[in-house]
Protein backbone atom coordinates (compact mmCIF):
# COMPACT_ATOMS: atom_id res chain seq x y z
CA UNK A 1 0.00 0.00 0.00
CA UNK A 2 2.87 2.33 0.93
CA UNK A 3 4.47 1.52 -2.41
CA UNK A 4 1.28 2.52 -4.26
CA UNK A 5 1.06 5.77 -2.29
CA UNK A 6 4.67 6.57 -3.15
CA UNK A 7 4.11 5.85 -6.84
CA UNK A 8 1.01 8.08 -6.88
CA UNK A 9 2.96 10.87 -5.17
CA UNK A 10 5.77 10.61 -7.74
CA UNK A 11 3.24 10.52 -10.58
CA UNK A 12 1.73 13.72 -9.15
CA UNK A 13 5.14 15.43 -9.04
CA UNK A 14 6.01 14.35 -12.60
CA UNK A 15 2.61 15.59 -13.80
CA UNK A 16 3.24 18.94 -12.14
CA UNK A 17 6.57 19.19 -14.01
CA UNK A 18 4.82 18.27 -17.28
CA UNK A 19 2.37 21.14 -16.69
CA UNK A 20 5.26 23.58 -16.29
CA UNK A 21 6.84 22.32 -19.52
CA UNK A 22 3.51 22.76 -21.35
CA UNK A 23 3.36 26.40 -20.27
CA UNK A 24 6.93 26.97 -21.46
CA UNK A 25 6.10 26.05 -25.09
CA UNK A 26 2.74 27.78 -25.36
CA UNK A 27 2.85 28.82 -29.02
CA UNK A 28 3.93 25.37 -30.20
CA UNK A 29 1.23 23.80 -28.07
CA UNK A 30 -1.44 26.03 -29.59
CA UNK A 31 -0.28 25.13 -33.11
CA UNK A 32 -0.42 21.41 -32.29
CA UNK A 33 -3.89 21.86 -30.81
CA UNK A 34 -5.10 23.70 -33.92
CA UNK A 35 -3.60 20.94 -36.09
CA UNK A 36 -5.48 18.26 -34.18
CA UNK A 37 -8.75 20.19 -34.34
CA UNK A 38 -8.25 20.65 -38.09
CA UNK A 39 -7.68 16.90 -38.49
CA UNK A 40 -10.94 16.01 -36.73
CA UNK A 41 -12.84 18.76 -38.57
CA UNK A 42 -11.61 17.55 -41.96
CA UNK A 43 -12.46 13.90 -41.23
CA UNK A 44 -16.00 15.06 -40.35
CA UNK A 45 -16.07 17.00 -43.60
CA UNK A 46 -14.74 14.00 -45.53
CA UNK A 47 -17.41 11.72 -44.06
CA UNK A 48 -20.13 14.31 -44.77
CA UNK A 49 -18.92 14.45 -48.35
CA UNK A 50 -19.15 10.68 -48.74
CA UNK A 51 -22.55 10.46 -47.06
CA UNK A 52 -23.91 13.35 -49.10
CA UNK A 53 -23.97 10.89 -52.03
CA UNK A 54 -24.55 7.57 -50.29
CA UNK A 55 -26.77 6.51 -47.36
CA UNK A 56 -24.81 3.58 -45.95
CA UNK A 57 -21.30 2.11 -46.04
CA UNK A 58 -21.08 -1.61 -45.27
CA UNK A 59 -24.42 -1.38 -43.46
CA UNK A 60 -23.49 1.63 -41.31
CA UNK A 61 -25.17 5.04 -41.42
CA UNK A 62 -23.42 8.40 -41.13
CA UNK A 63 -24.22 8.70 -37.39
CA UNK A 64 -23.03 5.18 -36.67
CA UNK A 65 -19.74 5.74 -38.51
CA UNK A 66 -19.31 8.98 -36.55
CA UNK A 67 -19.74 7.03 -33.30
CA UNK A 68 -16.94 4.70 -34.36
CA UNK A 69 -14.73 7.63 -35.29
CA UNK A 70 -15.40 9.52 -32.05
CA UNK A 71 -14.81 6.39 -29.96
CA UNK A 72 -11.47 5.99 -31.72
CA UNK A 73 -10.67 9.62 -30.89
CA UNK A 74 -11.60 9.22 -27.22
CA UNK A 75 -9.32 6.17 -26.82
CA UNK A 76 -6.49 7.68 -28.86
CA UNK A 77 -6.65 10.98 -27.00
CA UNK A 78 -6.77 9.27 -23.59
CA UNK A 79 -3.69 7.26 -24.53
CA UNK A 80 -1.87 10.43 -25.57
CA UNK A 81 -2.84 12.21 -22.37
CA UNK A 82 -1.50 9.36 -20.24
CA UNK A 83 1.36 7.87 -22.23
CA UNK A 84 3.02 10.84 -23.97
CA UNK A 85 6.29 10.04 -22.20
CA UNK A 86 6.69 6.91 -24.36
CA UNK A 87 7.36 9.23 -27.34
CA UNK A 88 10.40 10.56 -25.46
CA UNK A 89 11.76 7.17 -24.42
CA UNK A 90 14.46 6.76 -27.08
CA UNK A 91 16.79 9.55 -25.84
CA UNK A 92 16.57 8.00 -22.38
CA UNK A 93 17.73 4.62 -23.74
CA UNK A 94 20.51 5.83 -26.06
CA UNK A 95 21.91 8.27 -23.50
CA UNK A 96 22.04 5.65 -20.76
CA UNK A 97 19.61 7.78 -18.71
CA UNK A 98 17.37 4.75 -18.30
CA UNK A 99 19.90 3.37 -15.80
CA UNK A 100 19.03 6.21 -13.46
CA UNK A 101 15.32 5.49 -13.81
CA UNK A 102 15.74 1.77 -13.14
CA UNK A 103 17.89 2.45 -10.06
CA UNK A 104 15.27 4.67 -8.44
CA UNK A 105 13.08 3.12 -5.72
CA UNK A 106 9.79 3.36 -7.61
CA UNK A 107 8.26 1.44 -10.52
CA UNK A 108 9.92 2.51 -13.82
CA UNK A 109 6.48 2.74 -15.54
CA UNK A 110 5.68 5.77 -13.37
CA UNK A 111 8.50 7.58 -15.16
CA UNK A 112 8.73 6.04 -18.65
CA UNK A 113 5.04 5.36 -19.24
CA UNK A 114 3.07 7.88 -17.17
CA UNK A 115 5.73 10.50 -16.52
CA UNK A 116 4.65 13.13 -19.05
CA UNK A 117 0.92 13.88 -18.96
CA UNK A 118 -0.12 15.74 -22.13
CA UNK A 119 -2.38 18.52 -20.90
CA UNK A 120 -3.19 19.85 -24.37
CA UNK A 121 -5.12 16.71 -25.25
CA UNK A 122 -7.34 17.15 -22.17
CA UNK A 123 -8.83 20.15 -24.02
CA UNK A 124 -9.90 17.80 -26.83
CA UNK A 125 -11.33 14.90 -24.86
CA UNK A 126 -14.29 16.89 -23.49
CA UNK A 127 -15.79 17.82 -26.90
CA UNK A 128 -15.24 14.24 -28.12
CA UNK A 129 -17.26 12.83 -25.21
CA UNK A 130 -20.00 15.46 -25.59
CA UNK A 131 -20.23 14.85 -29.36
CA UNK A 132 -20.44 11.08 -28.84
CA UNK A 133 -23.25 11.53 -26.32
CA UNK A 134 -25.02 14.06 -28.54
CA UNK A 135 -24.95 11.79 -31.59
CA UNK A 136 -26.03 8.77 -29.54
CA UNK A 137 -29.02 10.67 -28.11
CA UNK A 138 -29.87 12.02 -31.59
CA UNK A 139 -29.99 8.46 -32.94
CA UNK A 140 -32.97 7.83 -30.63
CA UNK A 141 -31.83 4.45 -29.32
CA UNK A 142 -30.72 5.61 -25.85
CA UNK A 143 -30.14 2.74 -23.44
CA UNK A 144 -28.38 3.05 -20.06
CA UNK A 145 -27.18 -0.57 -20.22
CA UNK A 146 -25.38 0.13 -23.50
CA UNK A 147 -23.74 3.24 -22.06
CA UNK A 148 -22.45 1.38 -18.99
CA UNK A 149 -21.10 -1.40 -21.20
CA UNK A 150 -19.56 1.23 -23.50
CA UNK A 151 -17.69 2.84 -20.60
CA UNK A 152 -16.53 -0.57 -19.33
CA UNK A 153 -15.27 -1.49 -22.79
CA UNK A 154 -13.51 1.87 -23.13
CA UNK A 155 -11.65 0.90 -19.96
CA UNK A 156 -10.92 -2.45 -21.55
CA UNK A 157 -9.55 -0.71 -24.66
CA UNK A 158 -7.25 1.30 -22.43
CA UNK A 159 -5.81 -1.98 -21.12
CA UNK A 160 -4.93 -2.98 -24.71
CA UNK A 161 -3.53 0.52 -25.33
CA UNK A 162 -1.39 0.19 -22.19
CA UNK A 163 -0.16 -3.21 -23.34
CA UNK A 164 0.83 -1.78 -26.74
CA UNK A 165 2.76 1.06 -25.10
CA UNK A 166 4.60 -1.38 -22.82
CA UNK A 167 5.53 -3.46 -25.88
CA UNK A 168 6.85 -0.31 -27.60
CA UNK A 169 8.97 0.47 -24.50
CA UNK A 170 10.33 -3.09 -24.38
CA UNK A 171 11.08 -3.00 -28.13
CA UNK A 172 12.83 0.34 -27.54
CA UNK A 173 15.09 -1.19 -24.90
CA UNK A 174 16.03 -4.06 -27.18
CA UNK A 175 16.54 -2.16 -30.45
CA UNK A 176 16.69 1.56 -29.43
CA UNK A 177 13.93 2.04 -32.03
CA UNK A 178 10.97 3.89 -30.54
CA UNK A 179 10.02 6.79 -32.81
CA UNK A 180 8.82 4.73 -35.76
CA UNK A 181 7.44 1.90 -33.63
CA UNK A 182 5.15 4.24 -31.73
CA UNK A 183 4.07 5.90 -34.97
CA UNK A 184 3.36 2.48 -36.53
CA UNK A 185 1.22 1.75 -33.49
CA UNK A 186 -0.61 5.06 -34.13
CA UNK A 187 -1.11 4.19 -37.80
CA UNK A 188 -2.30 0.69 -36.92
CA UNK A 189 -4.91 1.93 -34.47
CA UNK A 190 -5.95 4.54 -37.04
CA UNK A 191 -7.09 1.63 -39.18
CA UNK A 192 -9.79 1.18 -36.52
CA UNK A 193 -11.21 4.68 -37.03
CA UNK A 194 -14.08 3.12 -38.92
CA UNK A 195 -15.74 -0.32 -38.66
CA UNK A 196 -13.36 -3.14 -39.60
CA UNK A 197 -15.99 -4.39 -42.07
CA UNK A 198 -14.56 -1.95 -44.63
CA UNK A 199 -11.43 -4.10 -44.92
CA UNK A 200 -11.21 -7.24 -47.03
CA UNK A 201 -9.61 -10.50 -45.95
CA UNK A 202 -6.83 -11.17 -44.98
CA UNK A 203 -6.44 -7.63 -43.62
CA UNK A 204 -9.62 -7.89 -41.51
CA UNK A 205 -8.47 -11.20 -39.98
CA UNK A 206 -5.10 -9.65 -39.07
CA UNK A 207 -6.83 -6.73 -37.29
CA UNK A 208 -9.20 -9.05 -35.50
CA UNK A 209 -7.05 -11.98 -34.40
CA UNK A 210 -3.38 -10.97 -34.60
CA UNK A 211 -3.37 -7.26 -33.76
CA UNK A 212 -6.58 -6.65 -31.77
CA UNK A 213 -7.45 -3.29 -33.35
CA UNK A 214 -11.10 -4.35 -33.43
CA UNK A 215 -11.19 -5.09 -29.69
CA UNK A 216 -9.55 -1.78 -28.99
CA UNK A 217 -11.44 0.56 -31.31
CA UNK A 218 -14.58 -1.10 -32.66
CA UNK A 219 -15.98 -3.14 -29.76
CA UNK A 220 -16.99 -0.20 -27.48
CA UNK A 221 -18.88 1.48 -30.35
CA UNK A 222 -20.59 -1.81 -31.19
CA UNK A 223 -21.70 -2.08 -27.55
CA UNK A 224 -23.12 1.44 -27.67
CA UNK A 225 -25.06 0.58 -30.82
CA UNK A 226 -26.32 -2.61 -29.13
CA UNK A 227 -24.86 -4.89 -31.81
CA UNK A 228 -22.32 -6.67 -29.60
CA UNK A 229 -23.02 -10.17 -28.27
CA UNK A 230 -22.08 -11.22 -24.71
CA UNK A 231 -19.60 -13.61 -26.26
CA UNK A 232 -18.00 -10.62 -27.94
CA UNK A 233 -17.85 -8.76 -24.62
CA UNK A 234 -16.15 -11.65 -22.79
CA UNK A 235 -13.73 -12.24 -25.67
CA UNK A 236 -12.78 -8.55 -25.58
CA UNK A 237 -11.95 -8.68 -21.87
CA UNK A 238 -10.06 -11.93 -22.28
CA UNK A 239 -7.99 -10.61 -25.21
CA UNK A 240 -7.09 -7.40 -23.41
CA UNK A 241 -5.92 -9.22 -20.26
CA UNK A 242 -3.94 -11.64 -22.42
CA UNK A 243 -2.31 -8.71 -24.23
CA UNK A 244 -1.38 -7.04 -20.95
CA UNK A 245 0.13 -10.26 -19.65
CA UNK A 246 2.18 -10.77 -22.82
CA UNK A 247 3.37 -7.15 -22.75
CA UNK A 248 4.57 -7.47 -19.14
CA UNK A 249 6.46 -10.68 -19.99
CA UNK A 250 8.06 -8.89 -22.95
CA UNK A 251 9.00 -5.93 -20.72
CA UNK A 252 10.67 -8.24 -18.18
CA UNK A 253 12.50 -10.05 -20.99
CA UNK A 254 13.70 -6.71 -22.41
CA UNK A 255 14.97 -5.61 -18.98
CA UNK A 256 16.95 -8.85 -18.66
CA UNK A 257 18.56 -8.16 -22.05
CA UNK A 258 19.22 -4.47 -21.26
CA UNK A 259 22.92 -3.67 -21.31
CA UNK A 260 22.79 0.11 -20.88
CA UNK A 261 23.63 2.16 -23.95
CA UNK A 262 25.70 5.31 -24.07
CA UNK A 263 26.12 6.94 -20.69
Amino acid at each position, binding site marked *: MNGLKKNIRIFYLLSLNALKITFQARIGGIF*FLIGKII*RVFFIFL*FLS*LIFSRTRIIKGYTFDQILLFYLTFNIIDTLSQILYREVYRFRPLVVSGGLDMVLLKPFHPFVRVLLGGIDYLDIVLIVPYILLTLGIYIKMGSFHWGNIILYVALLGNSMIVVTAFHIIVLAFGIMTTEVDHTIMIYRDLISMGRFPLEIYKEPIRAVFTFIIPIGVMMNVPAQALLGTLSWRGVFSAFLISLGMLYISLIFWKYALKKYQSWGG
Partner: protein
Amino acid sequence: MLPLIQVFKTTIREYAAYRLNFILWRLRMFLNLLFNFFLWSAVFDTRSTFGPFPKHAMISYILYANLISTFVLGSRTAEIGAYINDGTIINLILKPVSFFKYYFARDIADKVMNIVFALLELAIVIWLFNATLVLPQNIMLFALFFINGILISFFINLMLSFIGFWTPEIWAPRFLFIMLVFFISGSYFPLNLLPPPVYHALLVTPFPYLFFLPSLTLIGQIDGAVILFQLFFSYFWVVILYHLALYMWKTGNKNFSFWGR
Protein backbone atom coordinates in the same frame (compact mmCIF):
# COMPACT_ATOMS: atom_id res chain seq x y z
CA MET B 1 26.81 19.40 -60.99
CA LEU B 2 29.35 16.80 -59.79
CA PRO B 3 29.16 17.81 -56.09
CA LEU B 4 25.35 17.59 -56.27
CA ILE B 5 25.56 14.07 -57.68
CA GLN B 6 27.80 13.20 -54.72
CA VAL B 7 25.24 14.74 -52.33
CA PHE B 8 22.58 12.59 -54.00
CA LYS B 9 24.69 9.43 -53.61
CA THR B 10 25.57 10.20 -49.99
CA THR B 11 21.90 10.68 -49.10
CA ILE B 12 21.05 7.33 -50.66
CA ARG B 13 23.85 5.74 -48.59
CA GLU B 14 22.42 7.36 -45.45
CA TYR B 15 19.19 5.49 -46.10
CA ALA B 16 21.09 2.28 -46.63
CA ALA B 17 22.79 2.80 -43.26
CA TYR B 18 19.47 3.34 -41.43
CA ARG B 19 17.51 0.61 -43.20
CA LEU B 20 15.18 -0.30 -40.33
CA ASN B 21 14.12 3.34 -39.93
CA PHE B 22 13.27 3.57 -43.59
CA ILE B 23 11.42 0.25 -43.77
CA LEU B 24 9.29 1.19 -40.74
CA TRP B 25 8.53 4.56 -42.35
CA ARG B 26 7.37 2.82 -45.54
CA LEU B 27 5.24 0.43 -43.49
CA ARG B 28 3.45 3.46 -42.04
CA MET B 29 2.84 4.85 -45.50
CA PHE B 30 1.55 1.47 -46.69
CA LEU B 31 -0.98 1.36 -43.83
CA ASN B 32 -2.26 4.80 -44.82
CA LEU B 33 -2.61 3.67 -48.42
CA LEU B 34 -4.56 0.55 -47.34
CA PHE B 35 -6.97 2.62 -45.24
CA ASN B 36 -7.83 4.96 -48.08
CA PHE B 37 -8.04 2.16 -50.64
CA PHE B 38 -10.40 0.04 -48.55
CA LEU B 39 -12.57 2.95 -47.50
CA TRP B 40 -13.24 3.93 -51.11
CA SER B 41 -13.67 0.29 -52.15
CA ALA B 42 -16.35 0.00 -49.42
CA VAL B 43 -18.11 3.13 -50.71
CA PHE B 44 -18.31 1.53 -54.18
CA ASP B 45 -19.82 -1.68 -52.79
CA THR B 46 -23.34 -0.38 -53.31
CA ARG B 47 -22.79 1.98 -56.25
CA SER B 48 -20.87 2.14 -59.52
CA THR B 49 -20.09 5.88 -59.63
CA PHE B 50 -19.35 8.61 -57.11
CA GLY B 51 -19.88 12.09 -58.54
CA PRO B 52 -18.04 12.16 -61.88
CA PHE B 53 -15.88 9.16 -60.89
CA PRO B 54 -16.59 5.53 -61.84
CA LYS B 55 -15.08 3.02 -59.40
CA HIS B 56 -11.91 2.30 -61.39
CA ALA B 57 -11.26 6.05 -61.88
CA MET B 58 -11.65 6.77 -58.15
CA ILE B 59 -9.43 3.85 -57.10
CA SER B 60 -6.88 4.92 -59.75
CA TYR B 61 -7.00 8.47 -58.38
CA ILE B 62 -6.37 7.26 -54.81
CA LEU B 63 -3.47 5.02 -55.86
CA TYR B 64 -1.87 7.55 -58.24
CA ALA B 65 -2.30 10.35 -55.69
CA ASN B 66 -0.53 8.19 -53.13
CA LEU B 67 2.32 7.50 -55.54
CA ILE B 68 2.68 11.11 -56.68
CA SER B 69 2.44 12.49 -53.14
CA THR B 70 5.24 10.13 -52.11
CA PHE B 71 7.49 11.74 -54.69
CA VAL B 72 6.28 15.32 -54.34
CA LEU B 73 6.25 15.48 -50.54
CA GLY B 74 9.36 13.36 -49.90
CA SER B 75 11.86 15.77 -48.39
CA ARG B 76 14.91 16.04 -46.17
CA THR B 77 14.36 19.73 -45.46
CA ALA B 78 12.66 19.03 -42.11
CA GLU B 79 16.12 18.57 -40.58
CA ILE B 80 17.16 22.14 -41.48
CA GLY B 81 15.08 23.67 -38.67
CA ALA B 82 16.88 21.58 -36.06
CA TYR B 83 20.25 22.44 -37.69
CA ILE B 84 19.44 26.13 -37.39
CA ASN B 85 18.45 25.75 -33.75
CA ASP B 86 21.60 23.88 -32.73
CA GLY B 87 23.98 25.85 -34.94
CA THR B 88 24.96 22.92 -37.20
CA ILE B 89 23.66 24.95 -40.15
CA ILE B 90 26.97 26.86 -40.15
CA ASN B 91 28.69 23.75 -41.58
CA LEU B 92 26.32 23.83 -44.55
CA ILE B 93 26.54 27.58 -45.10
CA LEU B 94 30.33 27.34 -45.31
CA LYS B 95 30.23 24.70 -48.04
CA PRO B 96 31.00 25.95 -51.57
CA VAL B 97 27.64 24.71 -52.86
CA SER B 98 24.36 26.58 -53.18
CA PHE B 99 22.29 25.73 -50.11
CA PHE B 100 19.08 25.44 -52.15
CA LYS B 101 20.73 23.14 -54.71
CA TYR B 102 22.35 21.06 -51.96
CA TYR B 103 18.98 20.39 -50.35
CA PHE B 104 17.26 19.85 -53.67
CA ALA B 105 19.79 17.08 -54.41
CA ARG B 106 19.09 15.54 -50.99
CA ASP B 107 15.36 15.82 -51.64
CA ILE B 108 15.64 14.06 -55.00
CA ALA B 109 17.52 11.19 -53.33
CA ASP B 110 14.78 10.96 -50.70
CA LYS B 111 12.10 10.95 -53.39
CA VAL B 112 13.87 8.27 -55.44
CA MET B 113 14.22 5.98 -52.41
CA ASN B 114 10.59 6.48 -51.45
CA ILE B 115 9.17 6.06 -54.94
CA VAL B 116 10.92 2.70 -55.40
CA PHE B 117 9.19 1.36 -52.30
CA ALA B 118 5.90 3.10 -53.11
CA LEU B 119 5.84 1.35 -56.51
CA LEU B 120 6.36 -1.96 -54.78
CA GLU B 121 3.50 -1.20 -52.36
CA LEU B 122 1.26 -0.23 -55.26
CA ALA B 123 2.07 -3.52 -56.99
CA ILE B 124 1.16 -5.41 -53.80
CA VAL B 125 -2.23 -3.67 -53.58
CA ILE B 126 -2.98 -4.30 -57.26
CA TRP B 127 -1.92 -7.94 -57.04
CA LEU B 128 -3.50 -8.77 -53.67
CA PHE B 129 -6.81 -6.96 -54.09
CA ASN B 130 -7.28 -7.02 -57.88
CA ALA B 131 -7.35 -3.24 -58.24
CA THR B 132 -7.87 -2.05 -61.82
CA LEU B 133 -6.04 1.09 -62.80
CA VAL B 134 -6.79 3.63 -65.52
CA LEU B 135 -3.73 3.73 -67.78
CA PRO B 136 -1.80 7.00 -67.36
CA GLN B 137 -3.00 9.71 -69.73
CA ASN B 138 -1.94 13.28 -70.73
CA ILE B 139 1.69 12.52 -69.89
CA MET B 140 3.09 15.87 -71.12
CA LEU B 141 0.58 17.91 -69.15
CA PHE B 142 1.11 15.66 -66.15
CA ALA B 143 4.87 16.29 -66.35
CA LEU B 144 4.33 20.06 -66.20
CA PHE B 145 2.06 19.86 -63.15
CA PHE B 146 4.28 17.25 -61.54
CA ILE B 147 7.50 19.30 -61.79
CA ASN B 148 5.70 22.36 -60.47
CA GLY B 149 4.29 20.28 -57.61
CA ILE B 150 7.79 19.14 -56.65
CA LEU B 151 9.08 22.73 -56.66
CA ILE B 152 6.10 24.09 -54.71
CA SER B 153 6.56 21.38 -52.07
CA PHE B 154 10.32 22.05 -51.90
CA PHE B 155 9.94 25.79 -51.34
CA ILE B 156 7.16 25.43 -48.77
CA ASN B 157 9.22 22.83 -46.88
CA LEU B 158 12.25 25.13 -46.92
CA MET B 159 10.20 28.01 -45.55
CA LEU B 160 8.79 25.85 -42.76
CA SER B 161 12.35 25.02 -41.72
CA PHE B 162 13.57 28.62 -42.05
CA ILE B 163 11.09 29.51 -39.28
CA GLY B 164 13.90 28.14 -37.09
CA PHE B 165 15.82 31.40 -37.69
CA TRP B 166 13.26 33.19 -35.55
CA THR B 167 11.92 30.59 -33.11
CA PRO B 168 12.90 27.17 -31.74
CA GLU B 169 9.30 25.96 -32.14
CA ILE B 170 9.71 24.52 -35.61
CA TRP B 171 7.69 21.30 -35.40
CA ALA B 172 4.28 22.74 -34.62
CA PRO B 173 3.95 24.81 -37.86
CA ARG B 174 5.13 21.77 -39.84
CA PHE B 175 2.53 19.57 -38.12
CA LEU B 176 -0.14 22.12 -39.03
CA PHE B 177 1.08 22.13 -42.64
CA ILE B 178 1.00 18.33 -42.82
CA MET B 179 -2.59 18.31 -41.52
CA LEU B 180 -3.59 20.84 -44.17
CA VAL B 181 -1.76 18.98 -46.94
CA PHE B 182 -3.47 15.69 -46.11
CA PHE B 183 -6.91 17.14 -46.49
CA ILE B 184 -6.84 20.06 -48.88
CA SER B 185 -4.31 18.61 -51.31
CA GLY B 186 -6.59 15.73 -52.19
CA SER B 187 -5.01 12.67 -50.60
CA TYR B 188 -8.33 11.42 -49.15
CA PHE B 189 -10.57 12.36 -52.08
CA PRO B 190 -10.44 14.31 -55.35
CA LEU B 191 -10.98 17.98 -54.51
CA ASN B 192 -13.45 18.51 -57.37
CA LEU B 193 -16.00 16.57 -55.28
CA LEU B 194 -16.20 19.58 -52.98
CA PRO B 195 -18.92 22.20 -53.52
CA PRO B 196 -17.82 24.38 -56.52
CA PRO B 197 -17.19 27.61 -54.53
CA VAL B 198 -14.90 25.76 -52.06
CA TYR B 199 -13.13 23.92 -54.90
CA HIS B 200 -12.53 27.14 -56.86
CA ALA B 201 -11.28 28.90 -53.74
CA LEU B 202 -8.81 26.05 -53.12
CA LEU B 203 -7.52 26.31 -56.70
CA VAL B 204 -5.99 29.70 -55.95
CA THR B 205 -3.97 28.23 -53.06
CA PRO B 206 -0.79 26.17 -53.67
CA PHE B 207 -2.22 22.95 -52.18
CA PRO B 208 -4.07 21.41 -55.17
CA TYR B 209 -0.93 21.80 -57.30
CA LEU B 210 1.06 19.43 -55.08
CA PHE B 211 -0.55 16.17 -56.24
CA PHE B 212 -4.28 16.64 -56.81
CA LEU B 213 -3.98 18.14 -60.31
CA PRO B 214 -1.14 15.82 -61.40
CA SER B 215 -3.23 12.80 -60.32
CA LEU B 216 -6.40 14.11 -61.96
CA THR B 217 -4.44 14.73 -65.17
CA LEU B 218 -3.09 11.20 -65.11
CA ILE B 219 -6.55 9.60 -64.93
CA GLY B 220 -7.85 11.88 -67.73
CA GLN B 221 -10.41 13.71 -65.56
CA ILE B 222 -8.95 17.20 -65.83
CA ASP B 223 -11.33 19.91 -67.01
CA GLY B 224 -10.01 21.03 -70.41
CA ALA B 225 -11.69 24.45 -70.18
CA VAL B 226 -9.61 25.59 -67.20
CA ILE B 227 -6.26 23.92 -67.87
CA LEU B 228 -4.57 27.22 -68.78
CA PHE B 229 -5.86 28.87 -65.60
CA GLN B 230 -4.57 25.97 -63.50
CA LEU B 231 -1.21 25.89 -65.26
CA PHE B 232 -0.86 29.63 -64.75
CA PHE B 233 -1.52 29.27 -61.03
CA SER B 234 0.93 26.39 -60.63
CA TYR B 235 3.71 28.50 -62.22
CA PHE B 236 2.56 31.52 -60.22
CA TRP B 237 3.01 29.60 -56.95
CA VAL B 238 6.41 28.25 -58.00
CA VAL B 239 7.68 31.79 -58.65
CA ILE B 240 6.08 33.35 -55.56
CA LEU B 241 7.19 30.60 -53.19
CA TYR B 242 10.73 30.58 -54.59
CA HIS B 243 11.08 34.31 -53.92
CA LEU B 244 9.52 33.99 -50.47
CA ALA B 245 11.87 31.13 -49.55
CA LEU B 246 14.85 33.12 -50.84
CA TYR B 247 13.73 36.18 -48.90
CA MET B 248 13.36 34.14 -45.69
CA TRP B 249 16.77 32.54 -46.25
CA LYS B 250 18.54 35.89 -46.76
CA THR B 251 16.74 37.63 -43.89
CA GLY B 252 17.24 34.62 -41.63
CA ASN B 253 20.97 34.55 -42.39
CA LYS B 254 21.26 38.20 -41.42
CA ASN B 255 19.44 37.64 -38.11
CA PHE B 256 21.08 34.34 -37.36
CA SER B 257 23.35 33.90 -34.37
CA PHE B 258 24.33 30.87 -32.35
CA TRP B 259 26.49 29.74 -29.48
CA GLY B 260 29.31 27.21 -29.38
CA ARG B 261 30.74 25.09 -32.20
